[in-house]
């Protein structure tokens, strides 16, 4: 299959520029736009991809952007704030104090209204009443010296029998109204009307009581007049001369529930803020329209975790976008803050607050509109999908609920969430503004857009990581799994595939149009140049197509640099793209003279556009005169044949971000990916086996074009915690484990064949958390959660428990076994633990510790032995990679001598893998980021980052392929990727 290359349209280029500038500017940029008709200039601030109008000046935005440091969690929270503000959807952050809820909402308000933004704040406390929310009568023009007297009198009146009695009655009537609304005994409109009547009575009666009780206030010499002063909610809607305010409601669930219910009126149609609030004010105005800048942000703490808190009243939970900030996420942020000494350690603070371009959600410049394209089959598919996932979420939530861990104990949540269709409506609203582009096809990526929206409006409502995972899995199944397949135009395919097909059919510019558009281009993206390089190297692309692309590039280049000739344009472009590489002959010669063992692979055109240059580690240089097309093709063919030239590629020392394009597999396997491996049997071309919580083991065979396709899964009843495979004669034996060891036989991994279940054997009473196998695949070691390591010879008949060799680690001191790894000769069994200890046992002698407790490194994620077993590399979740020299001592034991420790990446890696040669390490993170570092190339003493990839969600499994040229990436959601070189 030929690779498809689509050239960037001006919109795509603009989106790429937005992404780059956001990453460069710390996630916040500013721009102005002048209306050509009216001449009016409008200002916009872009917050992590969400662009909204702003009153702030450029200087203000720059100052705020410069002073703000955002961790990954902050970025996610700020993006949520900006998205909800843009859609005018009220937002609730629920999380423990210190997570940054308030700080971020305030910084955002400053980005909208400037550094001196006036942010209304309602602080929830048991003393918060309708006086604070709706308003109260108070004297106007009261002199300072009379304030105390007035407040003393107010205390007397509020505590008096008449006011107390009236307020009790008012509370009861609000509760009745709310109950009737909840029980569907009245509509939202009727509720508003009834509330208006109630408020009329409230304003009249409290005004009368105050006037009567304080009639002697005039005798205090104040000269004051009475005025109804609007409370926080009314001010947010109508203050600032009708433009409205941003209102921060802090500690909202401290407010007594009857007063919380006053906020029910903010719930509008489609899940946004209501257009108006019904209230009878002193001026006899009964309806208060929402100002253009009105937005309400709520923050609350977990009621289960803190004494004295009540829950947010259930009807309100559905009127806001509800996002839980988990303790785990908040703890990660705390750790970063502390490790950067509160920002004093500048380089660490910058590392923790870096904005990665690939994490940004950049909406397409031109969104597909419901009124046109969406109002047909595509829109129907969207609506059907949303209905299906909404139904699945509501059904699951009612049946299972949610859980929270308090003081180490898991409890059912007391905070209940209502689930009317509001979240589905919000999702549609989100889709109006936030469609993202599929980088491969250039058209709308509806699955990615809907996944992000589902995360925002559904997954974020849950506390329990397990429940979050459950609903993500359900979404994945409905969107991408066989179970969720639909018949579409006579074929049974997944919804994701349907979306891709329909998105491809949306009108898009023809190539002639693109050519003319390119004439107008004033900037040129270096990525485009990079694509040219890839294109010209690809011998599967017809030369006629290459010609078209070259013409387009030349046009683009000439527009940009008028002075250069056509012959110079292409080399200049490529030089631009590869500014950090060498592209002309002189530089190549200099480089070769300087470093005869240059590792870098370079390529490019000579200045005269007649030579194509390649050089690599051993080949050093390949200089050919490509005076004709035939010559050029010959070079390409030679290049393909020269395996040695690609050695650096296998070690990931080349191409940087290009690997993102080489996604060889992107599949959903229905549940948390617990283990995934490359396997090679006999003369086969390589397979992948993967499994996890879905209780299936999936097999993927390699296609001739280097991508992978799924074959029939092995169905089983136990979730997979570990996998291994070996060949026995003509058979392929697959082993999986959780609390049982399951052994399957399959004749052909690449074809759908029914595997034979050879045995199912209960191995241990506690769950397997890690699994390792010897190189021949016949020895399997299982690490369990209670710290036991059991060794089985699985090539024998059904093993028995008594046959197993056992080792035990001290769980109190060392934690759980996170990694079990055999040496290549099968003699050593290395065990890494959650407490950062590595133990090495004699695999042939049960209970014999060869080496115990190397040193704390942080939770160990991977261990790798060199081919001769004299070196071991260990990587921990802190990104620390330690190299040990393994030596046998005279007693038959071994010593491990630490040679070096390198810091790759940053803390809190959720998965890691070291390649077989120990010169590369991959780290995966909670936010889906994957980074590959060279352990041979150092920058300032640290491994050089050579490639990055963005997975859909939390990375839980990483595994390099045999040659280090491919990487398996497994996610908590069940998404499985293979990235890397497709040549072998």
């Amino acid at each position, binding site marked *: 299959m030929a690779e498809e290359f689509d050239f960037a349209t001006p919109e795509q280029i603009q989106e790429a520029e937005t992404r780059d500038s956001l990453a460069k500017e710390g996630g916040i940029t500013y721009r102005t736009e002048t209306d050509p008709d009216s001449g009016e200039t409008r200002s916009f601030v872009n917050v992590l991809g969400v662009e909204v109008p702003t009153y702030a000046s450029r200087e203000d935005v720059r100052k705020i952007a*410069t*002073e*703000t*440091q*955002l961790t990954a969690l*902050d970025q996610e929270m700020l993006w949520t704030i900006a998205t909800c503000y843009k859609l005018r959807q009220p937002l609730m952050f629920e999380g423990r*104090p*210190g997570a*940054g809820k*308030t*700080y*971020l909402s*305030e*910084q955002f308000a400053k980005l909208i209204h400037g550094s*001196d933004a*006036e*942010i*209304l*704040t*309602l*602080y*929830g*406390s*048991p*003393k*918060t*009443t309708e006086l*604070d929310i709706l308003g109260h009568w*108070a004297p*106007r*023009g*009261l002199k*300072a010296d009379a*304030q*105390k007297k007035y*407040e*003393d009198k*107010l*205390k007397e009146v*509020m505590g008096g029998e008449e006011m107390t009695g009236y307020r009790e009655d008012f509370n009861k009537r609000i509760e009745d109204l709310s109950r009737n609304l909840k029980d569907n005994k009245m509509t939202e409109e009727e509720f508003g009307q009834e509330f208006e009547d109630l408020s009329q009575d409230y304003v009249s009666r409290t005004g009368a009581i105050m006037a009567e009780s304080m009639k002697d206030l005039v005798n205090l010499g104040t000269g004051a007049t009475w005025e109804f*002063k*609007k*409370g*926080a909610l009314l*001010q947010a809607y109508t*203050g*600032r001369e009708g433009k409205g*305010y941003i209102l921060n409601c*802090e*500690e909202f669930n*401290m407010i007594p529930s009857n007063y919380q219910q006053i906020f029910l009126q903010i719930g509008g149609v489609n899940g946004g803020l209501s257009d108006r609030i019904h209230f009878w004010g002193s001026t006899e105005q009964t309806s208060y329209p929402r100002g253009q800048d009105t937005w309400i942000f709520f923050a609350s703490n977990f009621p289960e975790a*803190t*004494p*004295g*808190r009540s829950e947010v009243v259930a009807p309100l939970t559905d009127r806001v976008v509800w996002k839980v900030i988990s303790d785990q996420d908040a703890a990660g942020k705390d750790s970063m*803050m502390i490790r950067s000494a*509160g*920002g*004093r350690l500048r380089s660490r*603070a910058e590392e923790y607050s870096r904005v990665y371009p690939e994490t940004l959600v950049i909406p397409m410049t031109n969104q597909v509109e419901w009124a046109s394209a969406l109002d047909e089959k595509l829109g129907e598919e969207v609506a059907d999908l949303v209905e299906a996932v909404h139904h699945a979420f509501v059904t699951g939530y009612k049946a299972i609920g949610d859980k929270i861990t308090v003081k180490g104990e898991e409890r059912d949540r007391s905070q209940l969430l209502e689930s009317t269709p509001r979240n589905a409506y919000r999702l549609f609203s989100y889709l109006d503004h936030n469609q993202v582009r599929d980088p491969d096809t250039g058209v709308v990526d509806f699955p990615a857009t809907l996944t992000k929206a589902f995360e925002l409006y559904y997954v974020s409502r849950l506390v329990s990581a397990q429940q979050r995972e459950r609903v993500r899995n359900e979404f994945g199944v409905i969107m991408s799994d066989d179970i969720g397949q639909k018949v579409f135009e006579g074929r049974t395919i997944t919804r994701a595939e349907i979306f891709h097909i329909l998105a491809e059919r949306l009108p898009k510019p023809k190539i002639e149009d693109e050519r003319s558009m390119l004439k107008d281009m004033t900037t040129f993206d270096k990525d485009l140049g990079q694509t040219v390089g890839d294109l010209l190297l690809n011998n599967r692309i017809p030369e006629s197509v290459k010609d078209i692309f070259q013409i387009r590039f030349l046009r683009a280049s000439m527009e940009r640099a008028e002075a250069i000739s056509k012959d110079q344009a292409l080399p200049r472009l490529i030089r631009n793209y590869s500014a950090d590489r060498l592209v002309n002959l002189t530089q190549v010669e200099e480089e070769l003279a300087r470093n005869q063992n240059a590792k870098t692979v370079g390529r490019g055109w000579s200045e005269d556009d007649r030579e194509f240059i390649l050089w690599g580690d051993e080949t050093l240089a390949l200089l050919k005169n490509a005076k004709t097309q035939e010559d050029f093709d010959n070079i390409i063919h030679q290049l393909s044949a020269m395996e040695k030239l690609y050695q650096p590629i296998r070690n990931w020392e080349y191409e940087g971000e290009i690997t993102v394009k080489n996604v060889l597999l992107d599949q959903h396997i229905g549940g948390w990916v617990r283990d995934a491996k490359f396997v090679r049997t006999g003369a086969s071309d390589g397979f992948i086996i993967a499994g996890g919580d879905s209780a299936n083991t999936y097999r993927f065979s390699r296609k001739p074009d280097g991508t992978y396709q799924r074959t029939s899964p092995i169905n089983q009843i136990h979730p997979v915690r570990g996998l291994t495979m070996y060949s026995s004669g003509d058979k392929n034996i697959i082993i999986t484990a959780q609390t049982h060891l399951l052994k399957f036989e399959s004749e052909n991994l690449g074809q759908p064949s029914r595997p034979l279940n050879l045995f199912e054997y209960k191995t241990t009473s506690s769950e397997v958390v890690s699994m390792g196998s010897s190189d021949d695949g016949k020895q399997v070691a299982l690490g369990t959660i209670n710290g036991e390591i059991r060794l089985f010879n699985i090539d024998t008949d059904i093993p028995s428990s008594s046959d197993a060799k056992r080792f035990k680690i001290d769980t109190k001191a060392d934690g759980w076994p996170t990694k079990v790894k055999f040496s290549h000769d099968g003699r050593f069994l290395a065990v890494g633990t959650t407490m950062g200890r590595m133990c090495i046992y004699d695999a042939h002698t049960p209970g014999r510790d060869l080496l115990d407790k190397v040193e704390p490194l942080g939770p160990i994620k991977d261990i790798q032995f060199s081919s001769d077993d004299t070196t071991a590399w260990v990587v921990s979740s802190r990104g620390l990679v330690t190299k040990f020299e393994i030596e046998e001592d005279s007693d038959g034991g071994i010593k491990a001598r630490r040679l070096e420790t390198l810091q790759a990446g940053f803390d809190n890696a959720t998965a890691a893998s070291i390649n077989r040669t120990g010169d590369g390490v991959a780290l995966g993170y909670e936010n889906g980021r994957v980074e590959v570092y060279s352990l041979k190339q150092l920058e300032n003493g640290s491994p050089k980052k050579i490639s990055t990839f963005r997975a859909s969600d939390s990375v839980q499994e990483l595994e390099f392929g045999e040659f280090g040229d491919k990487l398996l990436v497994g996610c908590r959601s069940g998404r499985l990727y293979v990235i890397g070189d497709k040549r072998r």
Partner: protein
Amino acid sequence: MQTSAHEIADFINSLTQVSRPHPVIKDKILFDSGLIILEDSTGLNPGELADKLGSIKPVIYILDNEYSTDSFVSALVEANEKGTWLFVQCASDLNSTVLSILDQINDRNSFTISNYLDNEVFSLQLTEKTRIAFCLKNSDLAKISDPYFLNMFGPVLRVR
């Protein structure tokens, strides 16, 4: 009184000099508010503590009415203009607005409230020298209904 002058001086020093980093804004430091709790056994009244603050000449405010808002803000404005402490002799619960002020000051050393005097909204940025110190008897702590009242403060001095 068992609490020594040295301990009181420590409290004053920590409230005056110790800062913490803003969690989001680079290079911005925040100052805490302070709390003094008088054990009932001392027989001291909050007003008597104000005399032991040495060189600090605070604005003194008596908070004995949970409906007090504007007068509290006026006292705070005065302290801010003078660049000194507001010493609050607290003997009652706090209303939502006063709690909000303390919370905002804790978060960013400034606050915005609505309806102060005749202003729709009113904002105040505290100077680097302005501090708030609440002083109350241990027995009066029970009057405070907000369970997070103590979280509003950095240094706490318990006078025995």
